[in-house]
């Protein structure tokens, strides 16, 4: 029922009394930073016309219904010298660890989603959504296969007048490494550990799709519903988002430079090998 704060010498993040991430203090400046999980219910159609297709492997097509997964989150807090963590449980099939390592100036979100329930007969597409106070004015940026960032403007295409029949899916873009938004003062960037779909559906907010389970084929060729199972149950997905947030004016090095360095670490991580040393005392091994 109390506010919880974890952090290090670079940043502190706080969770409100309902267990949601609520604010961040970076470079001495306190800002709003909220994160939650939402899911879209999948469209169901007969696939006879283009306008009546089901959401499936090839297309993301929500039926217009957006559902927040919970109003209160259970928390467990772990604090130590190497890392500080908040373990969040959103519901029976969504949980997350939010952590700050002692020498890192980013926040790591390790999400765990699944198996997505389908007893109600509705396919679901789960997203992690971040809210900030940045006045991004409809603009956000996604990477191009890890290379330069491409400017995206909500409900806009550069070369024709756009009227989107599907305002959610029509504003989704591929994210293979990073999605970001900013205004004059603030910048938020989220680095992914795998290719995901992402968007900014309102100013200051970013979202990334982390898992989906669908019950109908979209008639684009695969002829199967995207309903992966293991031993009869839906798959569980676990992954990480690396969040960099701060003031554009006071960050040194710049936030974008820090994002690039972190991207190197995330996408080209060290390789871990393990060996049994039961036969060796430390001195022998040394």
């Amino acid at each position, binding site marked *: 029922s109390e506010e919880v704060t974890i952090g290090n010498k670079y940043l502190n993040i706080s969770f409100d009394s309902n267990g949601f991430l609520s604010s961040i203090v970076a470079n001495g400046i306190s800002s709003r930073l909220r994160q939650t999980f939402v899911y879209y219910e999948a469209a169901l159609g007969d696939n006879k016309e283009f306008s009546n297709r089901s959401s499936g492997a090839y297309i993301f097509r929500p039926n217009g219904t957006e559902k927040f997964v919970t109003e209160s989150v259970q928390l467990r807090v772990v604090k130590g010298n190497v*890392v500080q963590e908040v373990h969040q449980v959103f519901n029976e099939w969504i*949980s997350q*660890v939010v952590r700050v*390592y002692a020498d890192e100036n980013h926040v790591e979100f390790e999400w765990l989603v699944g198996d997505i329930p389908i007893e109600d007969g509705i396919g679901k597409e789960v997203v992690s959504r971040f809210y900030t106070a940045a006045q991004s004015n409809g603009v956000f940026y996604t990477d191009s296969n890890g290379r330069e960032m491409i400017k995206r403007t909500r409900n806009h295409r550069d070369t024709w007048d756009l009227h989107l029949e599907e305002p959610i899916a029509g504003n989704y873009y591929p994210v293979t490494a990073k999605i970001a938004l900013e205004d004059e003062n603030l910048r938020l960037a989220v680095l992914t550990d795998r290719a995901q779909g992402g968007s900014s559906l309102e100013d200051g907010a970013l979202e990334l799709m982390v898992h989906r389970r669908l019950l109908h084929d979209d008639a684009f060729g695969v002829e*199967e519903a995207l309903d992966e199972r293991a031993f009869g149950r839906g798959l569980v997905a676990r992954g990480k988002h690396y969040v960099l947030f701060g003031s554009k004016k006071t960050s040194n090095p710049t936030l974008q430079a820090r994002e690039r360095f972190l991207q190197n670490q995330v996408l080209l991580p060290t390789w871990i090998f393990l*060996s049994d040393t039961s036969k060796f005392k430390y001195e022998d091994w040394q």
Partner: protein
Amino acid sequence: GPHLNVLREAMGVMQHHDAVTGTEKQHVANDYSRMLHRAIEACGANTQIVLNQIVDPVQKKGYGKKQNHGVKRDFTFEFDTCHLLNISKCEITESKDNFMVTLYNPLAHSGYQYVRLPVSGSKYVVKDYRGIETPSQMVPIPESVQNLNYRFSNASYEVVFLANELPPLGFKSYYVSRIIESVDDFSKDSNPSVRVQADQPHFGSGWH
């Protein structure tokens, strides 16, 4: 060469647009997983040979005895990778009281990495090659991970430490050893009640 070719060929298949986007049929996705797993396992042999050569360059050149004051350096380490670290499970770190962690840095500049390893004990010491203890922390594995279906693991904690000053295109090893403070601690940790899930009829009662 043949081992690397297995991975080259698998990566060639994975260039197909269905493999990249995940729009393949499920049985094809399963086959892709099988191919990649087989290829990575095959290349484990290459990794082991190369790392042992780096560990002991004297032996590599064939004059270890003479150059090393008569100490015969004929050890080879088996370097294993854990494919289940993504669900906080690893057979070596959970079952061994002493193990070595080797980190290879593929970047062309020095780096660092926070290492997280699932373990079954509750207290560990991490030392680097100079005998200096590296600060570490025991962090509980979230219950939502521990309770995952089909994750059969004795690990309820992860030992976390910062591997620092990893040389560019080089490696650094750490020696991790479990601290057993009392007989009770040992018996409690080494014989944890194995979680057998009620909904596991596929594997029979002996599947732990």
